[in-house]
Each structure stands twice: as structure tokens, then as C-alpha cells.
């Protein structure tokens, strides 16, 4: 299989480059079996390195013990629980003080989509507007998964969550997801990108760019992170679900800088029908044909929207 062979070369190259760097989380974290977020955290922090202050607002990231419990820590670098609401602001304060005293420290957040797109959005937007020099990563598992799968504004249309249940009157979430990365593009951040753990070489490349951008402006990374528990699929299928999201254009991978504009980093030539992605998990099991059509239309509309921005930037 030619694409598979290509992938081996790429993964081996990543391994040879970064495999020797220390995993900066404790060996034991309490993420669910097959947790995509734990995978993302470990790769990310290893890449970003020990000269980092890490903020993990309430959610799965500290929920699995990255900040620790009762006197122990889960992380080898300085780490803290900001409030769900103030991650970007608190990190900005940390970064500014180190800049004031002339120390090079990366201020990084690994935040859930709920804390970023809902209740933490004001501080995120404010910090982006002020151009605070921080690296803000959103782990988008499309809901409040740590507390038992409640809907967030990043939850997609039709998805079952515990607060958008399936019943006689409603069948899952009745609104489409907020597109947080595009909102961040409209803040003209120094760097904005979407990524997926299924495309790890793409993620690593974007992490490098984001890290660099965070030295002179606000860097924002939005990573789609399937949740085996909340989305209802077998833990072994996590990367496969993440991959199908991209292959169906349910998730598009792109990056943006004010200088280069927006461009797709993994364009999909022949996208799978979105139903192939939806069928891979239980949270969409109840969908009617009309709901599936709505989602297919939305996927295409979202794609056209981003394509137009990309064309304008390069036209």
C-alpha cells in the first residue's frame, strides 16, 4: 500500500526526531482507555519542552490528573488549574512578567472546547485581541466530556449528549457547531491552525509554527479529538474516527497567518460521504435521513466558506 509506506517513513522520522525527548507528563494519567486527548497532550508537551508554564482549565485534561490530586502532580513542568473562564488571561499575566524580567518561557494552554468556546471565550478573545504572546491549544472533543458528555457550542448538529438527548420531541443537538478557529482567524492572531491526531506529522509541523508564533503574538491551535466514551465507539477505533472526520471534510485541516493568509494543509480530493464518519460512532446512531442531509450540507457549506477565504487570500 503506497500511502501506508509513505506513512511509515513519516512516523519513523518523527520518532527519530522527538522519541528521545522526555514525556513531560507522569507515566500514569487517568484518561479513559484510548483517550485521544491524553495522546495529544503527551505529544504536545514533549514537543514544547520543559521551559513551559502549562495551563489546563477544568475538563478532561486536569480531570485525568495533569495537575494532580491531593499533593501529587501529573506534570513535570509548572502546571496549574486556571478557572474554566480565565485561562488566556491568567497565562497572559505569567508570560508578561517573564518578558518583563527577560526570561524566555512558553505560556501554553491545553483547554477543552467548552472552556474555550463557551464560558472562557471572553478571556480568550480579549487575550487574542491584545496579542498576548501565548500558545493556546483547544482540544475539541465537541462537548463537556469530563463531566459526563454535556453539549457545548462546539457540539455538532444532531449529536446526542446528556443535555441534548434523543427523545420523542428532539433528536440530539438542534444547532450547528460554533466554528471557533475561524473566529480566531478574525482576531488576526499571529497563527491559527486546525489539526487532528490522525495526521500527526501535520500536527507536529503546526506545533512548531505555533510555538514560534507565540513568541511574537497569539498562537491558536484547534485540535479535533474524538472521545471514545462520549462519542460512543470502541477505544481501539479512536484514530480511525479522527481520520474519517478529515477524510469526509467534517473536519478540515488548514492554517492561517496574517502574512500568508489561510491555506489547506491536507486538502481532501475525493471526500467520503459524511455518513461514513457518522456511522463510526454511537452518538449519531439515531439520525434521520433529513438530519444526515443537514450535516452533509453543513459540511459542504463549511468547506466552501473556508475555501473562499483561502482563495481570497491567495487570489
Amino acid at each position: 500500500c503506497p500511502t501506508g509506506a509513505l506513512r511509515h517513513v513519516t512516523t519513523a522520522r518523527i520518532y527519530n526526531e522527538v522519541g528521545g525527548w522526555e514525556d513531560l507528563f507522569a507515566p500514569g494519567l487517568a484518561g479513559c482507555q484510548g483517550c485521544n486527548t491524553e495522546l495529544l497532550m503527551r505529544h504536545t508537551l514533549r514537543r514544547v519542552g520543559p521551559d513551559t508554564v502549562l495551563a489546563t482549565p477544568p475538563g478532561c485534561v486536569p480531570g485525568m490528573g495533569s495537575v494532580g490530586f491531593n499533593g501529587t502532580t501529573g506534570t513535570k513542568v509548572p502546571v496549574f488549574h486556571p478557572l474554566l473562564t480565565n485561562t488566556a488571561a491568567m497565562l497572559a499575566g505569567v508570560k508578561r512578567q517573564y518578558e518583563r524580567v527577560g526570561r524566555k518561557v512558553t505560556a501554553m494552554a491545553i483547554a477543552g472546547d467548552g472552556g474555550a468556546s463557551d464560558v472562557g471565550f471572553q478571556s480568550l478573545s480579549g487575550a487574542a485581541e491584545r496579542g498576548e504572546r501565548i500558545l493556546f491549544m483547544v482540544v475539541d472533543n465537541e462537548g463537556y466530556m469530563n463531566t459526563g458528555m454535556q453539549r457545548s457550542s462546539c457540539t455538532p448538529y444532531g449529536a446526542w449528549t446528556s443535555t441534548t438527548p434523543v427523545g420523542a420531541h428532539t433528536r440530539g443537538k438542534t444547532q450547528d457547531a460554533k466554528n471557533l478557529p475561524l473566529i480566531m482567524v478574525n482576531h488576526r492572531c499571529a497563527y491559527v491552525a486546525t489539526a487532528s491526531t490522525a495526521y500527526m506529522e501535520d500536527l507536529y509541523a503546526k506545533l512548531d509554527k505555533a510555538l514560534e508564533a507565540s513568541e511574537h503574538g497569539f498562537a491558536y491551535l484547534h485540535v479535533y479529538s474524538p472521545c471514545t466514551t462520549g462519542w460512543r465507539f470502541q477505544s481501539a477505533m479512536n484514530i480511525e474516527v479522527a481520520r474519517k472526520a478529515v477524510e469526509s471534510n467534517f473536519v478540515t485541516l488548514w492554517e492561517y497567518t496574517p502574512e500568508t493568509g489561510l491555506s489547506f494543509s491536507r486538502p481532501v480530493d475525493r471526500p467520503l460521504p459524511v455518513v461514513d464518519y457518522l456511522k463510526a460512532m454511537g452518538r449519531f446512531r439515531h439520525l434521520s435521513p433529513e438530519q444526515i442531509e443537514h450535516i452533509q450540507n453543513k459540511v459542504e457549506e463549511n468547506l466552501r466558506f473556508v475555501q473562499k477565504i483561502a482563495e481570497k487570500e491567495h487570489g
Partner: protein
Amino acid sequence: MSTTTIDTPNTDAARATTKAMLCEGNEAAALAVALARPDMVAVYPITPQTSLVEKLASLIAEGRMDADIVDAEGEHSVLSVLQGGALAGARTYTATCGPGLAFMFEPYLRTSGMRLPLVMTIVTRDGITPQSVWGGHQDAMTVRESGWIQMYCETVQEVLDTTVMAFKLAEHHDVMLPVNVCLDGNYLSYGASRIELPEQAEVDAFMGAKDVNWHVALDPQRPMAVDPLTGGSGGNGPETFARYRRGQCRGMQSALRVITEIHEEWGQRFGHHFAPLVEEYRLDDAEYAIMTLGSMTGAAKDAIDEARAAGEKVGLIKIKTFSPFPVAALKHALRSVRALGVVDRSVAFRWNCGPMFQETLGVLYRLGRHIPAQSFIGGLAGADLTTAIFHRVIDETRALLTRPASDEPVWLNAKD
């Protein structure tokens, strides 16, 4: 406003040099902050605090103050930015009031638990509903159980001096708690009085070395997890949690001693003497007394002087430090009075009285004295508490010598 300065003759050789000037309360707070040399101030404007942060911004713009100023998008982020700054070692400051304080309540609660020595002025404001932009203590009183130290100022000079002292207090190793300097919106924030401004070098000598994050830091050279989840239903969690809570309470109690020490040192250095916890005014042979808080006290003292001149045996007790509540100092002040009138500029909804009155009842119990005490509520939403009003308070308190107090508060600026 004018920054006219006049050198004042130095009457005490050991005393620091000062400059006299006319200054509004908000301006005095800003000048004090500059003297304390914070690394970081974060601001969001709100009436009646606005002229304070405008003054800070101009001091920084003119190069008269070396601090990073963060124009945050709201008070919630203001306090959050400062928490981050403090965890990286910055001395930090902000000011707010009313709705701004309510909006920052979530990080506000956290500042004391993390033992971060922030200083924040509350330019007190009434409301929030009935909607009001005018003075009153309701905002500061509403957050009184949040683990912050709160000191209320009577004069513009006291605003200036207390604001500088607040930084040293907050960073004292036995305290390590955030401090609110409460300054009355309107009468103190915009009222301009003659003040004496201390010299920078002498404030530097008073302040000593900055020591903000020795106990908790976000520093790659000292990696630690800050505020991991603590508690649970078993194991060592609950007792660990209780240990930290008890530590917070001990810090508050230590503050009573440290506030007194710092006020004494300030008085020796600068010749400005303020009662650190509770001021006893003409109490020595007083049969009855009134209690005040903040800027209302000046008019009340004038009324006491006039009543004394008319032969009344009345004195005044002013609370300066409201949190931690100065139980021992207030016990001393109340030791011999036989009737008490307590004037609050806010309400304690649950007890149908003023908050200071409510707290004082507890002190009387500890003292073992059951004397008639009356709650007076006035000065809400910018209402003026004049000498004439305090004569009424004095008269009604004197009446308690011969009749019991009412369970109802007396509403001073309300028409029946």
C-alpha cells in the same frame, strides 16, 4: 488636577520628608501605587473608579511609573492576569467596584486561597439594583467572606498611606493574603483634600525587598503543580483541604498583628499616625458611643466634638480594618460604653441591619456585655452623611441609656 507641591517644614528630624498637595482620593490611590512600584497593573474602567485607573495609565505613559499595564477586556480577566503575573513573581495591583467586583468574584475567591498578595482598591459603590453609580459599601460588604483583608479609609491621606502599606502587609510572610483598600466612592474618590506625599526613596526603604511568589510559583526553574484538586471523601484529601483552610484563617489572624506593626512603622517613618484596626475617639469617659466606617467618620467626629462641647459624654469608634474583624481591639473599645449606635453604609439583608452592626453583636457576646445597641443605615447610593445626621444618631443612641433598642434599623436618609 493640579500637582502643585509645596515643601513642608520638617518638624521632626527623624521623620521622612513629604510634599503637600491637593489631591482626590482616586488620585491619591494611584500615586500610592506608583510609590509601591508594582510590576503589573491591570485595569478596566468603572464608575467611580475610572479616574484612578486613568491616573495610573497617565503615570505610566509619562514614565513616572515603571509597570506593565494590561487593559483587559473585563474585571474577570483583570484579576486573572494579575494572578498569572503574581505566580511569575510580579507585584500586582488593580481597582474596581460594584458590578466589576461582582464580575471578578470567581477569580476574587481564588486569590485568597492561593495566598497571592495582590492589592486592589475597591472604590465602593452601591447597587447593583436599584441601579446606582454612587457611593455605598454594599459591594465590599457583599464579598466580606472571601478571605481578603479589607481596610476602610477615612481621609484622602489615609487612602494614600494605607495603599502603600497594603503592599507590605499582603507580602508579609505571616500573612500572604490579598488586600482590599476600600475608599468611599464619591466623597473620597472625587473629594480633594490637602495631603502630604512621601518621598519615593523613603517609601522604598519602608517597603524592603519584593517577595511575592516564594510559596507558590509558575516557574520552569521551580516546577510545581499549582492548586491540584484537593479533597474527596476518603484518604488524606479532606484533611489536606482542612489544613489549607486553617492556614488561611491563621493568615487572617496574623494580619491583625502585622497591620498594627506596619501602621506603627509607617507612623514612625512618615509622621502619619492612623489607628490600624479600631480608632477610639473621645471614648475615655464616654457613657455611650457611635460606630462609623470610612469617610463618614469626619463629619461624625465633628458632631461628637459639638456634643462634647454641649456636655454630652459621647465617644466614637471607627473601624479601619473590617476583615479580619478586629475582635480584641473592638472589645477594648466597647469595654465601658453603656449604649451603642452603629452606622452602616450598606445592609446585611439576612439580619435586617447593617453588616458592621451584625459583626459587633458578636463582639459584645464575646465581651459578655448585653448593652442596648442600635443599627443605623445611611449614606446609601451617594446620600450625604452630614454632621446634622450624626447629631440625630447621637441623640437616638443617648436615648438607649434609658430605653431598649429596636430590632428594626433606623434608616437615616429615607423618608418614612
